[in-house]
């Protein structure tokens, strides 16, 4: 980015990166896994196994039903014992395949490193791997890697900001799996014919910066760019602006400004998949929060219930009052800890009463902190007023559709108003009015 460009605003949140030095520990296979059919942005998958079927690791259990989707594979070998329904955090119901693990982890016969020679074969391999954006949004990677204008894409930006407090899973990937990260970058650049790569990493991860800089010193086209540790540095448009200076406009995709963004864990997975052919069946996540006995970075199988993961981390040391799937800024509170791990979860945080802000909501005093905190200079307080008045025209004018729901507005609001929630509702209102 040109030094003359002004950085976007945001908020300085306490980092709480308590687990940044903790090595990734692989969790043993749980007794049962629960594979929801909606683990990505887009259409849910269709169950393609029956109760009583024997399945093996990597076997397809959820078949994509639409273009915007990604297949779901069994993370264990064992027997399908039930096909239930689960209510997702979005409030939607989705089928869930329950598999009892035999703990042998027998690989499916079909698994072999993919043979890839062309761009099309590479994208097809990524599609078969079930990879989705592991940073949180869960956007199917094969779609991201296949833009309408492949010739105009000249930069691959690796999202290694990890700007959410507490979460250190990506940091560990950068430190412990730097070879996979660099390998994945080179493979992707090669097959997608992308000239440059910028690894955007917040400067609160010095060890990862040092290792990645060392590993890429002979790669003139791969640049490690330390970024200021300010939330939401990892927001896609924010990251693109701060690494390349390019502005992704309203209604545009990153590829429209010549950029493809990939999360650091996703790109590391690309390398692992190319070498082993094992689809996406596990996830590295941070387990933390003051209710957890031994916070850790854990590699767990997709579909493992959070209660099993937390028990692997010594269980609860105090009564949890709030459990978050994801970080404290954008994570979603879940009703109980029997929820299964999804592909795009990067943390589970359990907090006690002491950590929860229960101050009451008071009237807006128009202090404008929300406007100043918003990286996109939206006006959340005005959006709230327009929403309450049902004024769709005003919502359009205020461009609520640009909101990335980072939560800075709610975070800084002295009146404790649920601004980001109202932004979400306003976006729904806009969509419904069309």
């Amino acid at each position, binding site marked *: 980015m040109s030094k003359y460009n002004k950085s*976007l605003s945001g908020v300085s949140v306490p980092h709480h990166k308590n687990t940044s030095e903790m090595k990734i520990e692989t969790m043993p296979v749980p007794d049962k896994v629960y594979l929801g059919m909606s683990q990505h942005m887009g259409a849910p998958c269709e169950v393609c196994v029956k109760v009583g079927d024997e399945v093996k690791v990597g076997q397809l259990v959820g078949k994509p039903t639409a273009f915007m989707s990604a297949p779901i594979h069994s993370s264990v070998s064992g027997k399908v014992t039930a096909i239930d329904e689960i209510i997702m955090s979005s409030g939607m119901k989705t089928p869930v395949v329950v598999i009892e693990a035999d703990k042998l982890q027998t690989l499916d016969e079909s698994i072999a490193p993919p043979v890839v020679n062309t761009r099309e074969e590479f994208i097809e391999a990524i599609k078969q791997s079930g990879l989705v954006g592991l940073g949180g949004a869960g956007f199917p990677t094969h779609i991201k890697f296949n833009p309408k204008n492949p010739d105009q894409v000249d930069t691959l930006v690796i999202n290694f900001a990890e700007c959410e407090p507490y979460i250190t899973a990506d940091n560990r990937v950068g430190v412990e799996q730097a070879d996979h990260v660099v390998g994945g970058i080179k493979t992707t650049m090669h097959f997608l014919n992308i000239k440059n790569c910028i690894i955007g990493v917040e400067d609160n991860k010095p060890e990862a910066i040092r290792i990645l800089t060392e590993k890429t010193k002979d790669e003139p086209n791969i640049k490690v760019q330390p970024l200021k540790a300010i939330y939401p540095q990892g927001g896609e*448009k924010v990251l693109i*602006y701060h690494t390349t200076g390019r*502005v*992704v*406009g*309203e*209604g*545009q995709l990153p590829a429209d400004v010549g950029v493809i963004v990939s999360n650091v864990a996703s790109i590391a997975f690309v390398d692992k998949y190319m070498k082993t052919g094992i689809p996406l069946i596990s996830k590295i996540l941070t387990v933390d929060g003051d209710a957890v006995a031994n916070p850790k970075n854990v590699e767990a199988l997709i579909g493992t219930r959070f209660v099993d993961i937390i028990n692997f981390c010594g269980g609860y040391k105090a009564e949890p009052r709030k459990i978050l799937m994801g970080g404290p800024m954008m994570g979603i509170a879940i009703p109980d800890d029997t929820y299964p791990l999804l592909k795009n979860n990067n943390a589970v945080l359990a907090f006690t009463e002491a950590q929860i802000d229960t101050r009451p909501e*008071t*009237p*807006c*005093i*128009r*202090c*404008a902190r929300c*406007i100043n905190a918003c*990286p*996109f*200079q*939206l*006006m959340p*307080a*005005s959006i709230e007023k327009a929403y309450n008045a049902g004024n769709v025209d005003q919502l359009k*004018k*205020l*461009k609520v559709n*640009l909101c990335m729901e980072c939560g800075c507005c709610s975070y800084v609001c002295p*009146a404790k108003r649920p601004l980001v929630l109202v932004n979400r509702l306003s976006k729904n209102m806009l969509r419904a009015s069309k």
Partner: protein
Amino acid sequence: MQNVLIALVPAVVASVLIFGFRALLLEVICMAACVLFEFLFEKATKRDLTIYDCSAMVTGLILALNLPPTLPIWMAVFGCLAAIVLGKQLFGGIGMNFANPAIVGRIVLLIAFAQPMTTWVLPNAFNFGADLVSGATPLGVLKMGEAVDLSYGQLFLGLRGGCLGETCILALLIGGIYLIAKKIISPIIPVAYLATVFVASACFGRDPIFELLTGGVVLGAFFCATDYVTSPVTNKGKLIFGIGCGVLTILIRVFANYPEGASFSILLMNILTPHIDALTMSKPFGGAKE
């Protein structure tokens, strides 16, 4: 809000040093009266109690600092009633009022009790207990076409006739800088307001430094015009608001019957705030043009 009270401590101390203990009496009574009226109104209308957010105390104190030292207590209490009930609660309470409640209270008093509200005494600095000597404010003297016999230094320290809290510029600057340093207020409105007063008064051939040091512009710029609820939310809007306050203040000083126009100019700009907001909506990052 607590920070605003802290920021006003120097002005309160200065008012007591300059005008004696009656200043403190007025300040305490106004704060108590505002809290009481807020409590009674909210009880009567079964609204949530907001007396603990300190906003009523701030209104009471700012109103008191805008009163002449000799104002009868009952009039001051009436001003508090106007500020809290008329200026704030009838519009829906905190966050909903269109004008700064303290300014509303002051203007109601100024119009209802024109004479006591413009009876000034000269400071009896550090001379507690002595009889107060009546006299005009420097702007009043100027309005009558006479020369003012006060140095910039005296004006800066507040050794002149005037409202309780407006005279000591030093104390107000300390409070204002505290609020800006704590990021409670943005410097845009006060800086734009004061700079405009400076430039506009020079354009009319008046002494710009004198115009800044007298009247209520400094008190108004830091503590009244910066009220979140009644000023624009965007930086551009704040700039327009501050410039508008400055221009109106000088126009009133030069052309109107009143010697001072800070309160009226802030009230008028309060009324324009929704329109300024509508015209200065922020331009979102990457937003397409309409």
